[in-house]
C-alpha cells in the first residue's frame, strides 16, 4: 500500500517483481548470532530504511545483500531469479552498489581514482585496449558529478587519506550513486555528514528512486528516514521486529519499535510483502 505513494518507476524494470528479495537469512559469527531468519523485499524504485539499535545486525544484513558476506542459510533473489553472490563483484554485476559503514576507500588514491575504482575510464583506441587510463576524463567527470552532489572536495589530486570524515563519506556515496542500475545499499551514509550534505544525500536518494533504482538505507536518524523512506524495516537482536510506513507512523512510534519499548504500535509484519 505504501508503494502507491511513490511515483511509478520509469526505466526498464517491471514494477511487480521485487528488485531484491531475501528470505530466511541467518548468520552467526562464532558464538554471536548476528541474524536469525530475516526476510526483506525491495520493490523497484522503492526506498527502504533499515533501522535498529547498535549491534542489531543491520550491517551484517546488507553485507549479505551485497555479496561481502555469505549467509549461513537463506535465499537471495534478484528480479525473481535466485542468485548466489560469491563476492561483491557478483552483486555489482547484478546492478547492486553498496556504501559500506567501514568505508571501502583506497586511502592512497585520489577522489576521482576512488570514484572510478574497478571501472576505470580508459583512453580510446589501442592505448585504451592496453589498459591506459584516461585520468583527465575521469577527473572531469568526477568534478561534474561531485558538484551536482554539492560536495566540496578540497583537492582532486590529493589522496583521500587527507580528507575529513564527511568528505570521505561523500566520495563513497557518490561512487555508489554513479554506478547503480538496480539498487543502492547505504550503511549509515549520513553518520558523518553535516546538515547541508545530509540534505544532499536525501536529494540523491530521491533522485535515484526517481530513476527507478531502489534504495536500502541504514540510518539512526528518524527525521531523515521519515523524509526519504517509503518503508521502514526495524531489526532488533538480529530479527525483524517491525515493518512501518513512515506516512502513517509517528516519530514516537518509530522510536518505540526500535527500542522495543512498546509492542502494540508496529504495523502488521505481513505488510512487508507488497
Amino acid at each position, binding site marked *: 500500500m505504501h508503494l502507491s505513494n511513490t511515483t511509478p518507476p520509469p526505466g526498464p524494470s517491471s514494477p511487480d517483481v521485487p528488485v531484491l528479495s531475501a528470505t530466511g537469512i541467518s548468520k552467526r559469527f562464532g558464538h554471536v548470532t548476528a541474524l536469525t531468519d530475516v526476510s526483506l523485499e525491495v520493490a523497484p524504485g522503492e526506498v527502504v530504511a533499515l533501522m535498529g539499535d547498535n549491534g542489531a545486525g543491520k550491517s551484517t544484513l546488507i553485507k549479505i545483500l*551485497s555479496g*561481502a558476506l555469505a549467509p549461513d542459510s537463506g535465499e537471495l533473489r534478484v528480479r525473481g531469479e535466485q542468485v548466489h553472490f560469491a*563476492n*561483491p*563483484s557478483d552483486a*555489482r*554485476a547484478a546492478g547492486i552498489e*553498496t556504501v*559500506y559503514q567501514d*568505508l*571501502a*576507500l*583506497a*586511502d*592512497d*588514491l*585520489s*577522489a*576521482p*581514482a*576512488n570514484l572510478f*575504482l*574497478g*571501472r*576505470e575510464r*580508459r583512453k580510446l583506441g589501442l592505448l585504451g585496449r*592496453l*589498459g*591506459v*587510463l584516461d*585520468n*583527465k576524463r*575521469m*577527473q572531469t567527470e568526477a568534478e561534474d558529478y561531485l558538484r551536482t552532489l554539492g560536495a566540496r572536495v578540497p583537492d*582532486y*589530486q*590529493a*589522496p583521500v587519506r587527507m580528507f575529513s570524515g564527511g568528505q570521505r563519506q561523500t566520495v563513497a556515496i557518490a561512487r555508489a550513486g554513479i554506478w547503480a542500475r538496480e539498487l543502492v545499499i547505504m550503511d549509515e551514509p549520513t553518520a558523518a555528514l553535516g546538515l547541508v550534505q545530509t540534505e544532499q544525500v536525501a536529494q540523491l536518494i530521491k533522485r535515484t528512486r526517481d530513476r527507478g533504482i531502489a534504495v536500502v538505507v541504514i540510518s539512526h536518524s528518524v527525521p531523515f528516514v521519515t523524509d526519504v523512506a517509503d518503508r521502514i524495516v526495524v531489526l532488533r537482536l538480529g530479527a525483524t521486529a517491525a515493518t512501518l510506513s513512515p506516512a502513517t507512523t509517528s516519530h514516537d512510534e518509530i522510536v518505540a519499535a526500535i527500542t522495543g519499548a512498546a509492542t502494540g504500535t508496529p504495523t502488521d509484519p505481513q505488510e512487508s510483502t507488497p
Partner: protein
Amino acid sequence: MTPHLPIPTVGADVSGPDTMKRVRRAAAALTSNWVFLALVVLVVAFSLQAGGTFLNADNFRNILFNASGTILLAVGTAYLIIGGQLDLSIGSVLVFSQVIAAKTIVAVSGSAESGYPNAGAAITLGIAVALAVGAAWGLLNGVLVTRLKIPSFIITLGTLGMGLGLAQVITKGTDVTGLPPQMVTGIGMRQVLGLPLPVWIAAAVAVVAGLVLARTQFGRYTYAIGSNAEGARRSGIKVTRHQVVLFTMMGALAGLAGVLDVARYTTTQVSGHSADNLVAIAAVIIGGASLFGGRGTIFGTAVGVMIPAVLNNGLVIVNVQPFWQTVAIGAILIVAVAVDDIKRRQQLRAS
C-alpha cells in the same frame, strides 16, 4: 612512512596538451625529489673529486651494467611492495631458474668440440625456460599466500629455502658450467648502441613497468590493493588474482635476471644471491615506497638502485679506505632519505 617523491598522487591527471608544461612539470618534480637530488649530488661530488676518472662514459656504462640485474629484481619488488606484499625468495628463484636454464642450454647446444652447433636455439630456449621457471615459482608463492592466507613474509621465507635447496640438489652444490660462449657475445656482454644488452633490457623493463604502474588500470589496481585490499575487493577488483599475477611477474623477472647473469658469466652462481632480497627491498624503500603498501614509484625505485651502485663505484675510485666505505654507504643512505623527508615536510608547510 611518507612517500618521498612529489610525483602527483595516483589517479591525478598528469597528461596535458602542452608539452612544454609537461616538461616543466617533470623538471619541477625532479628537482623537488630529494632522493634523486642526492644521487645527483653524489655524482657531482665524485666527479669533482676524481674528475675524468669517475666522469667518463666507460665508467657509467660499467655502473649501469652492474646495476642492471638489481633493477629487474627491484622493479618486481616495487610492484609487490606497492601491492602490500613482500618476496624474500627472489634470490633463490633467480638461482633455481638459472640452474634449470643453464642445464637446458648445456643439454641442447651441442658439444663444445663442434663449437656448440645449436647454441642459438639453445639460448632462446634457455631464456624461455628461465622466464617460465621463475614465473612458476612466483605463481607458487602467490597461490600459497592467497590460499593459505598467511603473511607473504613466511611463505617466501619458506620458498627461499625450498628453491635454494632444490637448486643445490639438482646441481649437487656445484655450479653449472660449459655454456656456449655465444651466450656472452650474443647476449650477456653484447654491446648495442654503446651499452650492454642487459642494460637495455633492464631499462626497457623499468620504463614499461613504470608506465604500466602510473598509467594503466593494472597499476591503479596495484595501488588500490596495497592501500586497502578489502576495499579493492568490494570495488570488484579481483584481488587474489591480481596478487598472484604480481608474484608471478616477480618470479619471471627473477628468472630473467638469472638467465642474464648466466649469459654474462657462463656459469650459474648458486651461492651468490642470498642478499638479493634485502638489496631490492632497500632500493624500493629508499625510492619512497611504504612497506605497508599503497605508495611508491618505479622511478624512485630506480634511483634507489642507483644510489648504492654509484657509491660502490665512486668510493673505490676516490680511494676511500675499504671499511670506511661500508660506514659511508650506511650513513649516506640515512642522510639521503632524511633530507628528502625533511624537505618534503618543509615544502608542505610553505605551500
